[in-house]
């Protein structure tokens, strides 16, 4: 099995279009060979995860792309960086580290990527059409692009995402190929009470269970209401991509590739069938909290993935005229913040209630939370998964309503009744 390159791609590799494209192609070709791809596929857009600072090697790579004349070949958005560029005092780190984090973000802007700095590019206008081939990084964005939009991407990580953007190509393998998008696991959620399936708080729990259960497999969920929202699907995918390597899930009757079950379950392929039970759901719910018995919380964080304008509307309804007793962070894209600013009064009311809005980054990827540590409450399955190892905070999971009620008093308040069935 050998990789076939077109004449144009061989010219890219040879350096006919500059050193940056040649470098990108060298890495892309090696990766494609490693993955067993026989060709590259043209892409229509990219989302680069690589502008988050993990160390100075990442800065060096990005600046090498700039120095060698790199330009993205397709419309490209950027994931979060390690800084909130709109609120420079938000992140605590020594000045040299802050400077390097800034250089890394700037370098990717210099090669022509849009400074969106969000893990939810699909909320700020980057929405590939059904069936489009793209190369996206950031696990929740990958799951959303594949599952909710029906675009086609594999799981691209740091550096390879940028190489794909420069070359306008990706290795033709995995989920870029139609037959690999069929489900191998059917999850039956019919038994879950409708009252629970209507609640936002159910979806991160379902996702967390799904990721642990299916790992890398493509699943299809049946028995969810046709009214399931974009934000609920976003939360499901983000959570599943945290506990597992889920890059694509279908929801029968909801997501675009699965108008019905038969559309994503091949006739010849064997599938596992799992009926979702109360024990499975309660187990996943329990696992999302590491501090289930505490009474007090020290902070609340929402917005992983980044808060949508719809989620801000829901938050506003809950906090209007009230005052948070503990720090309350809402992480979002700068574009969404601008939308709020246009509404003027909405932003003011959020701020008056004590909601601190974080843009361009989030509280689990960079030092924002107070150093004292303690207990963090969240409605995000992704925050719940990563906060303990990344921030040192213990986590309590609850609904958005629970988060607000708890933040107002500083005491954990959770609605437990909906989980009884």
């Amino acid at each position: 099995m050998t990789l076939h390159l077109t004449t144009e791609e061989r010219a890219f590799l040879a350096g006919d279009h500059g050193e940056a494209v040649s470098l990108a192609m060298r890495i892309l070709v090696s990766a494609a060979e490693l993955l067993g791809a026989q060709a590259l596929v043209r892409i229509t857009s990219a989302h680069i995860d690589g502008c988050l600072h993990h160390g100075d090697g990442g800065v060096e790579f990005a600046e090498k792309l700039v120095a060698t004349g790199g330009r993205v070949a397709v419309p490209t958005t950027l994931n979060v960086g390690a800084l909130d560029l709109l609120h420079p005092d938000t992140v605590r780190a020594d000045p040299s580290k802050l400077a390097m984090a800034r250089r890394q973000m700037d370098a990717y802007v210099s090669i022509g990527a849009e400074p969106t700095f969000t893990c939810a590019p699909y909320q700020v206008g980057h929405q590939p059409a059904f069936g489009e081939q793209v190369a996206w990084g950031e696990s929740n964005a990958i799951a959303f692009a594949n599952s909710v939009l029906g675009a086609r991407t594999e799981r691209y990580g740091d550096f390879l995402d940028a190489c794909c953007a420069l070359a306008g190509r990706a290795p033709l393998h995995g989920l870029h190929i139609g037959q690999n998008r069929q489900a191998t696991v059917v999850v039956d959620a019919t038994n879950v009470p409708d009252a629970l399936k209507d609640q936002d708080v159910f979806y991160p729990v379902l996702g967390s269970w799904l990721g642990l259960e299916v790992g890398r497999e493509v699943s299809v969920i049946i028995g969810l209401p046709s009214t399931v929202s974009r934000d609920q699907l976003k939360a499901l995918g983000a959570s599943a991509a945290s506990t597992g390597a889920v890059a694509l899930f279908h929801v029968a009757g909801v997501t675009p590739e699965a108008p019905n079950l038969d559309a994503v379950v091949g006739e010849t392929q064997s599938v596992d069938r799992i009926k979702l039970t109360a024990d499975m759901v309660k187990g996943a719910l329990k696992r999302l909290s590491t501090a289930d018995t505490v009474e007090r919380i020290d902070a609340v964080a929402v917005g992983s993935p980044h808060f949508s304008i719809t989620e801000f509307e829901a938050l506003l309804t809950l906090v209007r005229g009230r005052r948070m007793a503990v720090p309350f962070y809402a992480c979002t894209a700068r574009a969404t913040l601008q939308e709020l600013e246009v509404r003027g009064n909405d932003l003011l009311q959020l701020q008056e209630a004590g909601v601190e809005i974080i843009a361009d980054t989030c509280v689990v990827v960079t030092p924002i939370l107070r150093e004292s540590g303690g207990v963090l409450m969240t409605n995000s399955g992704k925050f719940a998964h990563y906060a303990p190892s990344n921030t040192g905070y213990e986590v309590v999971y609850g609904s958005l309503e629970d988060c607000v009620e708890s933040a107002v008093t500083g005491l954990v308040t959770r609605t437990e009744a909906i989980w009884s069935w």
Partner: protein
Amino acid sequence: MVEGRVLIPGNAEGRFLRLQAPISLWGGIDPVSGVVIDPRHPDYGVSIGGAVLAMPGAVGSSSSSAVMLELLREGNAPSAILMASADAILAIGILVSLELGYPTCPVLEVELSALDGTPQGTLLRVTSEGRVISP
């Protein structure tokens, strides 16, 4: 002697270290020191620097490419990696390291059960042809 498929070629030598569970380099390994920092991992506190590292399963987070690059720059990467199945994410970190003029780390895809009889800490040599031998 064990033979594997060469993912990243190279000659290397080091002490055998078999991780007891899959690990995501991002959030799992300190990018500067090379020590396992995930408190839920069975090898918590162990350093992977300089080892011939056997990793069960594929590794998760896509930011692991970046952590691999940092380990190589800092001189605390494993001397070689033996994996049960090809993983592009780790390999990309090594390819970028080479492009930037930093060290490499050979990676082989091998049947890890073939190493079941090899005690932890055994000195092993990995060859560019994909062989793992006891020198």
